[in-house]
């Protein structure tokens, strides 16, 4: 089977997001960008499925600015076989909505015919948690979100999902879209030889128009502001003071 893995380029998770002074968004000029951590986990899982002999090819896709090439080179160095870059904007501050991303990915899926699409469950920038679900709706494929375990059989993927009460296991018919959670695996680092090899792997560049997808925006971002900040409080001297504060708070 073929596996498709969409990877998003986002502000690195170790970097604190700064709101621009004019309230127009987050400042992304000259900051460290990386692959969305959840997408890294999705890609790692695809590589493990392939290493077990259950997949022949892994295609990484990224949608956004030209620089997403770097993210795709990382994906190729980790173990993707080839990459597709959809250049959809020339401004890194222009976040493409999950609905449009789903439309683009659906068009690619219809062309490439993967049996499985492995997505990160959410992007750590817009925190929408929506692309996988929208994509499976567009394709009318089965959906399994928040996976912490994936077992690939011929026509079925068995997915254990992290849900609010604990864990839920479901069988999803192939082709399926699966979104992954943090505990699925620990992604590998790309080795130096693999980084070198990745430079020669195919990376195709296309536009949304090539796929017949229209760029739309349904949610207009009117304003971006800092959250109400919390003042640091007091450091207490001993346990008795702490007990007193806890009792005051819970009214005991």
């Amino acid at each position, binding site marked *: 089977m073929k596996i498709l893995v969409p990877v998003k380029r986002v502000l690195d998770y170790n970097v604190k997001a700064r709101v621009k002074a004019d309230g127009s968004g987050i400042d992304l000029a000259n900051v460290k960008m990386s692959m969305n951590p959840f997408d890294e986990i999705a890609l790692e899982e695809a590589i493990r499925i392939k290493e077990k002999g259950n997949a022949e090819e892994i295609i990484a896709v990224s949608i956004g600015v030209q620089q997403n090439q770097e993210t795709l080179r990382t994906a190729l160095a980790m173990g993707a076989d080839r990459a597709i870059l959809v250049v959809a904007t020339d401004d890194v501050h222009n976040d493409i909505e999950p609905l449009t991303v789903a439309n683009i990915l659906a068009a690619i899926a219809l062309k490439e015919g993967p049996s499985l699409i492995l997505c990160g469950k959410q992007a750590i920038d817009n925190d929408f948690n929506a692309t996988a679900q929208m994509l499976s709706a567009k394709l009318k494929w089965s959906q399994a979100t928040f996976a912490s375990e994936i077992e690939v059989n011929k026509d079925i993927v068995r997915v254990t999902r992290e849900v*609010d009460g604990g864990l839920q296991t479901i069988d999803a018919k192939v082709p399926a879209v699966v979104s992954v959670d943090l505990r699925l695996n620990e992604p590998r680092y790309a080795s130096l030889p693999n980084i070198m090899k990745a430079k020669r792997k195919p990376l195709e560049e296309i536009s949304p128009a090539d796929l017949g997808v229209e760029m739309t925006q349904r*949610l207009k971002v*009117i304003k971006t502001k*800092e959250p109400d900040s919390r003042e640091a409080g007091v450091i207490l001297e001993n346990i008795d003071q702490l007990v007193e*504060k*806890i009792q005051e708070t819970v009214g005991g």
Partner: protein
Amino acid sequence: MKILVLAEINDGELAEDQTSKTVSAAAKLGKVEVLCASNQCSDASKKIAKMENVENVLVLEDDLFAQSLAESYSETLMDTIRSYSHVFAPSSSFGKNILPRIAGMLDVMIISDVSKVISEDTFERPVYAGNAIQTVQSIDKVKLISVRTSNFDAVPLTGSANLKKIECNTKNSLTTFIENKIQTNDRPELTSAKVVVSGGRGVGSKENFEIIEGLADKLGAAVGASRAAVDSGFAPNDWQVGQTGKVVAPDLYVAVGISGAIQHLAGMKDSKVIVAINKDEEAPIFQVADFGLVDDLFKVVPEIEKKI
């Protein structure tokens, strides 16, 4: 305007707090109808009917909805949903699974994790793990909204809505339920508890986590955990608080052996009072804590438990 709320029901059991707070958010725009879809609806629908501002409860009793699989909703309810201008669901694993799929089917955007309803088309939602708050305006015909329930109060149970039976006649041929591993305990639910005691990597082991649980039980609290504690197997996944876990806003949040990474803060910084116990005085958790104690948790926690 015609507003629908998807009640969260798992195997006949209403998630009352989540549903009530979602009704509360939706009711900022007007009276609502609530869809009660499950394998057993009698208890759940009666509870929903009492929620203030609910006009009608649409009761859809069918085994198809026992396990809240996304396809069961999206394949069968599109005609019903299309007739509303707004559809709300809690931003729990239930709502996050189902609502964006419905959005995809309707070709509209989802407005996830709404923390404030400003008007019928304008909403606030946190982004970047809560490091920024965005105001967004939707141009879609049907607005699909998942609600960050910790930002809303439950509605009073003063209503008496009508119950209306509805039916569906489709199947979910895409996914099949296999099993649930649901942890049950007598503690309050994490997302609605007044007090939460959470442990992090500093707690060190599953056995040691008992001291966190001991203090929680003394305080009648729910137990939470950092991702590091869950990943290390000290605590089950459904205890995780944070950007990718649960969002809580109790009256008191006690963070024990938790450093205070932004992803953890995203899930608890709206708590009324935050107490932190950490042996490292530089730990970022102290920057958001109202009260901090710099000490060894193994000494402090059992002693607090004794003295309370």
